[in-house]
């Protein structure tokens, strides 16, 4: 018997990647928001050494850690920190990068040289190393994590924005806007930005995934979220000693990171498709 699963024909804008990505990200965000209601136990206080390192089962769906805390509840609460760090820091990066790239590409001259130099400088130093340095100055914690990650990886958005602006600058409609008396800022926001938004949004969603991973890495190194508070990265960090004896400690936070990053990437892909006005065709 041939296995011909006929999926319902989803004639939806953006296609499958938007919907799969959107659902994965939606699940992660609703877990973060609904954490107090869907968590089974308190992620920090309900430690019970009698329950330590119980494998996944009916009572503890994802098992318990060395302190007897429910992994599932910690992942649900950890979503709050991981997602907010990922989203807020990437928004900072996008704002910085797009502003610099847009103005540099549009105005050119010494400002472009300055911004390009700065971008190259940022690209030359691995952003995680830069973030480590900032964390070392600011000390561990959620706010310094967001600041460190939000200031260190804007170079990709900046590069993309600048390159896009350069290719659009000579287009007739930009010249037409200048001839019509539009000011520079108005041209940048009404004529240039909407036309370069597609790739920038894709870069931003990729960056959110990257920021979640960077948070995980910094927390893993002990510079991010301090124990006992859960973030996906700090959970991985704590679980590394027990990876052979209690692998569920690292598998489930890892899966949470994996599916969220995957979802963000797919969402970016799908968004790019629907943000293109040419995808809605209506011929005369």
């Amino acid at each position, binding site marked *: 018997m041939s296995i011909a699963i006929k999926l319902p024909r989803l004639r939806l804008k953006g296609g499958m990647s938007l919907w799969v990505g959107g659902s994965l990200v939606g699940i992660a965000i609703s877990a973060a928001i609904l954490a107090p209601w869907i968590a089974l136990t308190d992620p920090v206080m309900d430690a019970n050494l009698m329950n330590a390192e119980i494998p996944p089962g009916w009572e503890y769906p994802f098992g318990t850690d060395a302190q007897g805390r429910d992994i599932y509840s910690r992942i649900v609460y950890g979503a709050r920190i991981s997602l907010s760090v990922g989203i807020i820091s990437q928004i900072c990066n996008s704002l910085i990068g797009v502003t610099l790239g847009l103005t540099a590409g549009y105005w050119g001259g010494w400002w472009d040289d300055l911004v390009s130099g700065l971008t190259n400088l940022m690209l030359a130093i691995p952003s995680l190393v830069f973030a480590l340095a900032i964390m070392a100055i600011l000390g561990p914690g959620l706010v310094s994590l967001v600041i460190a990650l939000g200031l260190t990886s804007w170079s990709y958005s900046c590069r993309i924005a600048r390159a896009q602006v350069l290719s659009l600058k000579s287009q007739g409609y930009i010249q037409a806007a200048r*001839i019509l008396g539009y000011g520079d800022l108005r041209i940048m926001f009404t004529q240039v930005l909407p036309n370069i938004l597609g790739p920038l949004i894709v870069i931003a969603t990729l960056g959110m995934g990257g920021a979640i991973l960077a948070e995980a890495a910094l927390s893993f190194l002990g510079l991010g979220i301090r124990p006992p508070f859960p973030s996906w990265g700090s959970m991985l960090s704590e679980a590394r000693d027990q990876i052979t004896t209690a692998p569920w400690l690292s598998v489930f936070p890892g899966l949470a990171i994996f599916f969220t990053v995957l979802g963000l990437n797919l969402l970016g892909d799908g968004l790019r498709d629907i943000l293109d006005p040419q995808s809605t065709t209506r011929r005369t």
Partner: protein
Amino acid sequence: MAESLLTLDDLAVHFMVGSAFAGGVKTLKAVDGVTLEVKAGECLGLVGESGCGKSTLALAIMGLLLPTRGLIHVDSQQISGSTPPDRMAMARTVQMVFQDPYASLNPRQTVRRTLADPLRLHGVNDKAEVEARVMDMMAKVGLRPEHADRYPHEFSGGQRQRIGIARALILKPKLVICDEPVSALDVSIRAQIINLLLELKDEMGLAYIMISHDLGVVEHVSDRVAVMYLGRIVEQGGWQEIFEDPRHPYTRALIAAIPDPFHRAAATIAKTKAKGEIASALNPPPGCHFNPRCPMKADVCVADAPFLGTVGPGHLAACHFRDRVS
């Protein structure tokens, strides 16, 4: 005589190309000493091969390129020089229709926004008035009201060019520079767009500078014609003089090249042909720029650059043999 709307006085636009390290910096004289005048309500045809500086001239008039020397007066306001021109006032006086209707419309703006935003920017705040003027302009260029909320990619090339024309006219300018307005369009659409431009000219009292490499288009619409070669005007005059009594060998060559066997002027001067290609503006030939291709070349052509001399009322030609060419 009608008032002068645009005057160019010895306008030049030079570009520095190359680098100081590789081969040295060279000066590209894209526009080199152009003196022109456009009167209210008239259509000046600007003709020349690709690379002769027509579009550079247009951009300089629009204020998008800084002239190297010379003066531009638009509506008796000087727009070149030390003080930046009043761009808003310029926008209400001079507008431009672009060559490529695919690149000249913002793909993310509906027709309504493309037309309404400039109005709002120029102080038309009443919603009903903006809407009325947008609809009126769309009707004028032959677009239906239901087209207002569509995006550029939903239109054909001809329709897009109509939108481009509507955008250029929405602020009711006095002068419109049409930079090859039909050369990117299908031949079957060209006549429609040209006729639309002519109708709008009469209806709104516009003056045009019709830039084209197609003499057929220019002959059809122009009151006066200026012929450009390597950054200089080589001949200008009323369209009748230019087409029936061209005095510059280059003009003759252009007319002879009109691919229409029944064209009267083309048939009578079919013997004249320009040899070879247009010379590089980076390294123009000495004397008269046209001399390497000219069938009438003499020693004086290499030694001296001819000036634009009068050969008839309002008819100027820059050729040493302007009185013998015919």
